[in-house]
């Protein structure tokens, strides 16, 4: 798994990556009450706002961690946003994307580096 400074995780699955937010991010957000997912097929650039997530406290944006195309979104999150608190690094992934430039993955942190980043 790779991590961004925006507290996203990315897991390579075949020629796609699965993207979600970290346990740390979910704890910081508090109870998530609303998730708005992008349309499948959307082409995004790194740092585009792709997901809106609202907790009881505030609204936040999830940014595209790399360039690519959204291939699938985790629609159950829309009806059941609390999944993000229950299992942020498992069931509650946000979207899958096909990378335009797989080398962008090399710029991301590994788990040890991320743990150090949030410490």
């Amino acid at each position: 798994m790779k991590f961004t400074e925006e507290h996203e995780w990315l897991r390579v699955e075949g020629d796609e990556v699965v993207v979600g937010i970290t346990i740390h991010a979910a704890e910081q957000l508090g109870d998530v009450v609303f998730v708005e997912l992008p349309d499948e097929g959307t082409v995004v650039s790194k740092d585009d706002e792709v997901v809106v997530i609202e907790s009881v406290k505030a609204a936040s944006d999830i940014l595209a961690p790399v360039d690519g195309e959204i291939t699938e979104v985790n629609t159950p999150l829309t009806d059941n946003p609390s999944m993000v608190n229950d299992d942020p690094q498992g069931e509650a992934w946000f979207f899958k994307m096909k990378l335009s430039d797989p080398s962008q993955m090399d710029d991301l942190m590994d788990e040890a580096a991320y743990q150090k980043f949030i410490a």
Partner: protein
Amino acid sequence: MTDLKRTPLYDLHVELRAKMVPFAGYEMPVQYPLGVMKEHQQTREAAGIFDVSHMGQVILSAGSWESVALAFETLVPMDVLGLEDRRQRYGFFTNEAGGIDDDLMFARRGDDLFVVVNAACKDADIARMKSALEPQVTVTELTDRALIAVQGPKAEAAVAALDPATGAMRFMDVRDLQLGDVAVWASRSGYTGEDGYEISVPAAQAAAMTQALLAHDWVEMIGLGARDSLRLEAGLCLYGHDIDAETNPVEASLLWAIQKVRRKDGDRAGGYVGAGAVLDAFASGVSRKRVGLLPEGRAPMREGVAVFDAAEGGQQVGTVTSGGFGPTVGGPVAMGYVGTEHAAVGTALWGEVRGKRMPLHVAKLPFVAANFKR
């Protein structure tokens, strides 16, 4: 976080691993490890304790009830004189333009008036009372007392375990009590829409009293986050957001708080700061009203969201002043001001969130029925 004040429960909050944030000049708990959502549900279903010691507690005395009540009536449009002993009422200070400078609770304790004001306004409120009422009235801020609210359907069981006399109190009653070995006074009131008590306790004994209440496993500490969603579902105003110096009581839908005796043709009509402006607003109506706003989708509509009369184009006809997720409602809830012509319950309107118009409608307040012991 320099210069922030701490309440007598500060050490307890830290011990209970509260997340502390700056609020109205104090370091206050916004949530505990339970989290905002569960703290909210805990209060609706069992009992929660809120540290509201940041609020101002003030005693006014003038030798007799009549003197102090009539003096206070020059600052608020409420019937103070008619308040029975050991009873409490909601009120607000008005300004010359008829706007609301703070909202408050006031209670009669024998010949004295006990006033609780918002933390952010308390210095100004105390200065106002001193400058307007002294020397005929003595205005004393009680800086050595904490204020602890116990709220929820099991609040009575928690408090009555310490003093059974609390069970007989009705909504807005005020009593001197003995909670364990601590002498306190309390009102049967709160700001969550639930039954409960607000207990004024000497600072030195506040933590011990709170811990005695927390001894029940169905009582939890509740932070400011859940306090906000609870009061929003209960349709109660947050000063500085839903009401302020620019909103008059008619616009704010707070006419219920102005008793007949202070209205036009009442025995003590007017006679408070801004009475002319308030009476004018009464007589000629207002162009906007505070209403409940219920988003129809799942997206919360928070403070500042613009409200329109059409899904596309149209006019901005209002603004959300408080909004968020209502855990008991199970969806987003909001309140705000809309043009009077759009204020009828059921009116379809649209809130603009992140550039998109989302449907909402004007809804009856409160969103969650009050659970007071009347």
